């Protein structure tokens, strides 16, 4: 099994994934990232709506890299630390 699958399975099973995701959403909304990304999505939608053949997947794959760069460093670091602690905690319980 790949690392990704194992991590996903375990975190979903233990309920940690939900907790981490909620934390991430809260932090991103607080720092205004969400509004920026919404504006970005809107602009891209308005641009690309001229030719109707663009799919949702394509647009999402366009938006994602830009959105990633927009995340403030502090939020990113905090989240990574949190994830690492949670993942490591399971090790300690064992």
């Amino acid at each position, binding site marked *: *099994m790949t*690392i*990704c699958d*194992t*991590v*996903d*399975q*375990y*975190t979903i*099973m233990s309920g940690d*994934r939900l907790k*981490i*995701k909620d934390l*991430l*959403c809260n932090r*991103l909304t607080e720092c205004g990232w*969400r509004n920026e*990304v*919404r504006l970005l*999505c*809107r602009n891209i*939608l308005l641009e690309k*709506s001229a030719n109707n053949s663009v799919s*949702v997947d394509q*647009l*999402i794959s366009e*938006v*994602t890299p830009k*959105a*990633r760069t927009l*995340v403030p460093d502090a939020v*990113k670091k905090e*989240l*990574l630390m949190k*994830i*690492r602690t949670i*993942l*490591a905690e*399971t*090790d300690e319980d*064992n």
Partner: protein
Amino acid sequence: MANSNTNQLHPLGATTSQTFTTALNHTAASTIAINFRELIKEPKELDEASNYLYQALLDDVVAGIFIETHHLRKTGNLAALDGVGEENLESAFHICEMPNLDIFGISTAKKQMDCTCPNCDRLVAAARFAPHLEKCMGMGRISSRIASRRLATKEGSSASTSSTSTYLQSGGNTGGTDDEDDVDWSSDKRKKKSTQSSRNNGSKKNNGKTF
């Protein structure tokens, strides 16, 4: 936990005594946990795992935002959220406060609303349309009274012999539904037109506006 104990002590017996699915679930869960913990022991793997998790969660959030915006656009609410531009606001929805005009700038005088009667093809005011139709088609209470009165006078006039009396009666009862009789009786003095319109005109003159 009792189940896992029995698993360790009697592996074969455990699978046969319990239901297959619950046994499978327990073993699957524990397998996942075991795999995961082995993975975490390596610090490099831990880094990779946490990076992967962070990326996956972020992608989920971005997809969520995009779908939300897309949905807004498809339902037309995106334009609605933007609202009307500031320069349009003044000109398009200016409140009108002049006398004799209502708030939209439309005059408050009575408007000319005329309907064409399907029976006599005349332009009638909308407010007077229903009473006109009543008389025109001969269906209301009053029309039936006129008709019965005319019938009575007609019989009376047919009985009498003097032309003047017939003239007066027919003059008094201008209009009516009997075409040939009217034309016969009042040929000389009153050129009775046999058209329906003149007859109805006459009837309206006599009996209109009684209420």
